[in-house]
């Protein structure tokens, strides 16, 4: 820089005030001030104001952190909110009645505009209808390789995909597959009960904020869907709301590394 001095600009003055110039540039700016006393005065005042701002706000950063802003307290409160909405979910979830033909068309009857990611439910239901009906090859990776399946889906979906144990509800994991959606790779886990009725869990990344559970009741496939920590979920089956609700809870808990909730 010594050999190649360049004119002092406004950026230099700002960096001077913030103390971010190299020693060499600092000296050049100081020399410049010798010839420009008025600017030197302004910059000197800017430095005073900067120091006063820092002093005035310093106390805020030195205060003890209020208890309610502690991470443990925040997490407790966030957790405790979930059972609350879950226990009243039966009363507040949205019922979107209609025929399969109606609600499988993307966007129709699915309240996605206000909150969360409603498109996922159409994708999930379509995928459910296609692959739940496939007796020969319902999955790409079988349940006996569950760990590999989880790793693979996590990698492709881009977020941790955890596999819920639905055996308490009578559903055995068959396995899973990767699907394409308009919003990127999606994972589908397929489960089957003793009557060979199938239930699928569909997941893909989303930018939407977390939501409560929502319910779509349709013939033949119903679904609970929600957004949680960057993943959009839909649990679909030809089953009643109670069974789906239990399954949705189990999927939610598995995603949080919890045994069924207490």
């Amino acid at each position, binding site marked *: 820089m010594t050999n190649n001095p360049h004119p002092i600009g406004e*950026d230099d003055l*700002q960096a001077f005030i913030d103390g971010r110039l190299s020693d060499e540039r600092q000296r050049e700016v100081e020399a410049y001030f010798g010839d420009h006393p008025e600017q030197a005065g302004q910059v000197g005042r800017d430095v005073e104001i900067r120091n006063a*701002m*820092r002093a005035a706000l310093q106390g805020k950063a030195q205060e003890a952190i209020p208890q309610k802003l502690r991470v443990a307290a925040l*997490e407790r409160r966030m957790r405790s909110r979930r059972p609350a909405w879950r226990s009243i979910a039966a009363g507040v979830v949205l019922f979107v009645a209609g025929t399969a033909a109606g609600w499988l068309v993307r966007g129709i009857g699915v309240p996605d505009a206000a909150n969360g990611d409603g498109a996922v439910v159409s994708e999930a239901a379509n995928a459910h209808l296609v692959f739940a009906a496939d007796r020969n090859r319902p999955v790409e990776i079988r349940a006996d390789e569950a760990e590999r399946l989880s790793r693979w889906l996590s990698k492709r979906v881009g977020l941790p995909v955890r596999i819920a144990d639905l055996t308490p509800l009578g559903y055995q994991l068959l396995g899973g597959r990767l699907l394409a959606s308009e919003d990127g790779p999606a994972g589908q886990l397929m489960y089957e009960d003793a009557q060979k009725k199938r239930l699928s869990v569909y997941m893909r990344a989303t930018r939407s904020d977390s939501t409560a559970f929502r319910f779509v009741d349709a013939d033949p496939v119903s679904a609970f869907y929600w957004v949680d920590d960057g993943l959009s979920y839909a649990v679909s089956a030809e089953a009643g709301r109670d069974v789906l609700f239990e399954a949705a809870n189990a999927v939610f808990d598995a995603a949080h590394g919890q045994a069924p909730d207490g």
Partner: protein
Amino acid sequence: MSGKADLIEAEIPALRRYAYGLTGNAPDSDDLVQDTLERALSRWSQRKPGGSLKAWLFTIQHNLFVNNYRRQKRRGVHTDIDGANEPHSQAADQEAHMELAGVLRAVGQLEDDRRGAILLVAVEDLTYQEAATVLGVPIGTVMSRLSRARRDLRELLDRKSAPALRRVK
């Protein structure tokens, strides 16, 4: 999980200071910080690997402020100043205290964009590049907001007609 708590809590004092500088009052600023932390916790897995946690948290907080808080325009620096600082009981401190109160009031009168820029750089010590990331603007925009913020502050504080904001030698 305690690693996550430690990492986040290390940034809370600065987040509270920035929130206070933005909103100008303690209730709003702690609400803003709480919203920021909850959002950060619920999106913890979406951080960019290797990215600056501080910049990530400040970005969340700044966006929440822009989207949720700034329309409220509920500023109360002048009534709340004593809460933000050590008590100044000695008379000799009075004048300095007035200067600090005046500075905060002037900061509150800046345009939101300029206030964000100068707080991030001059108080929070973010680099110009980090401030650009947090504000979602090019670095040149940060520099011009900074320059304008400083000019505005000089004018607000050194106006002859505002004796309470009078310059302290």
